[in-house]
């Protein structure tokens, strides 16, 4: 696993530096989501793009997740649960708490609409020996684990407002979230679907599936398709 061991968690030192660097420019007028994304809301809110990229594309090396193309409802819920402390992150909790609910909603819409292009691509089936790809495409129903693809799309590009894309997200981030559900440091999400499923995944499952999705192209381009298995 290339990146899974690199934690995507808390960076208080960096945030402190960013906040200081942002200066004390007071925000008086209403600020657009784009302005918050680009410049932040000093002093409490650093620019989102610092960690999540100029177009919300995330930062693979540092383990920051892509926001562009995640569903609006999903993003609203994440900001709200960071703000309430239900989803834990020393970095994101104070930032989300400093945003008004209107700003949270505006940012969610902004990033949802910055979605990557999503070209349709034919599904390719993996081999059972490809642990991560197999779990993603077929699940393990003997343990009541559905295929990830059933709710996140055949190529991990997400479905609708509530089921975020997984393709091309940093492996460490994906593994970290599954572990957070197991530990209870992230709210269970809609209908507790993910908390229940994560509890049924072993650490090896989590590593394999996180690695698999990290290797898929965020735009669904067929070039990096998993090794095909249509014998």
């Amino acid at each position, binding site marked *: 696993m290339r990146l899974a061991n690199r934690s995507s968690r*808390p960076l208080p030192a960096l945030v402190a530096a960013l906040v200081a660097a942002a200066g004390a420019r007071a925000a008086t007028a209403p600020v657009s989501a784009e302005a918050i994304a680009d410049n932040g809301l000093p002093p409490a809110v650093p620019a989102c793009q610092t960690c999540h990229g100029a177009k919300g594309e995330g930062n693979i090396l540092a383990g920051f997740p892509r926001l562009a193309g995640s569903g609006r409802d999903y993003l609203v819920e994440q900001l709200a649960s960071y703000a309430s402390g239900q989803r834990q992150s020393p970095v994101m909790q104070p930032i989300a708490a400093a945003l008004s609910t209107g700003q949270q909603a505006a940012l969610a819409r902004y990033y949802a609409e910055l979605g990557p292009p999503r070209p349709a691509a034919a*599904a390719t089936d993996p081999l059972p020996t490809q642990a991560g790809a197999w779990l993603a495409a077929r699940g393990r129903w003997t343990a009541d684990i559905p295929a990830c693809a059933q709710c996140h799309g*055949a190529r991990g590009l997400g479905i609708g407002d509530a089921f975020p894309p997984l393709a091309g997200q940093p492996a460490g981030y994906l593994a970290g979230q599954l572990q957070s559900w197991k530990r209870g440091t992230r709210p269970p999400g809609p209908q507790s679907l993910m908390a229940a499923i994560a509890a049924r995944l072993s650490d090896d499952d989590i590593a394999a599936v996180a690695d698999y999705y990290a290797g898929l192209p965020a735009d669904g381009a067929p070039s990096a398709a998993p090794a095909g298995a249509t014998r």
Partner: protein
Amino acid sequence: MKCRHRAARALRAAAAVAALAVPQLHAAETAPAPSAAKAFVPPAEQAMPEGEFGKMVKRGEQIFLHTRQYAPANVGNSLSCASCHLDAGRRANSAPMWGAYVSYPAFRTKDGAVSTFAARIQGCFSYSMNGKPPPLGDPVLVALESYSYWLAKGAPVGTKMPGAGYPKLPPPALAPDFARGRHVYDANCALCHGPTGQGQTSAGQPAFPPLWGPDSFNWGAGMHQVGTAAGFIKANMPLSQGESLSDQDAWDVALFIDSQERPQDPRFTGSVEATRKQFHDTPDSMYGRVVDGHLLGSGSK
């Protein structure tokens, strides 16, 4: 750039510290309850045979999972075989193919005749897939028969196996109710299947199956029967949370879903009333009934 490198270093250091600080409170791994204790276990994927027959089995599996993609001439909606037969037709209480394969030939009231397994699959294409059945001997049919035969390896022929078909729920305490069903639907189903049952796509490809409307199964499909749908829902829905709804909720939401307009029964005689009398004369079918002021079947094409 230098600054960015420093930041990245700080980042990694902070992350390492934070990782240590996170309490390692692993939730006990909750083992899901086995849904069918003594259900037959079909052969593992790795045991799929090689050679020409193995190729046909694999092709059947692909058609089963991606039906519209691999059998476009036979499919008229967004569903796949695996929409109703979960885990690629392996899952007990989700009408597994190992249970179906060993149950034919059989007399079917629906056909008024003894039907073969191949004819039963043809029925799925006509009704559940709202499409055109492949003719006997068609490669699509041969592939699906091969796949099912392989899944049933070692299963007893002609015996009703535990986990075959969908479970038959006991009659509900209260008569199934449309309004209660709507509440169950909104709370448990709409997240995936959409507020109007239309399903959802991912990157333009079908993902969550439509439950009613023009892109779903038609009025001739088994799933349009309230009891069939209730059994499937109780055992399998919401996906990964089977057995979580009460029997009453399953009946109510099945009635709600099966009281919506969907494509016409291919056996339509030209009159909803006559079609109900001939093919749907059972309390299990809402076809030809008036719900919410609408005569079901009259808006179907």
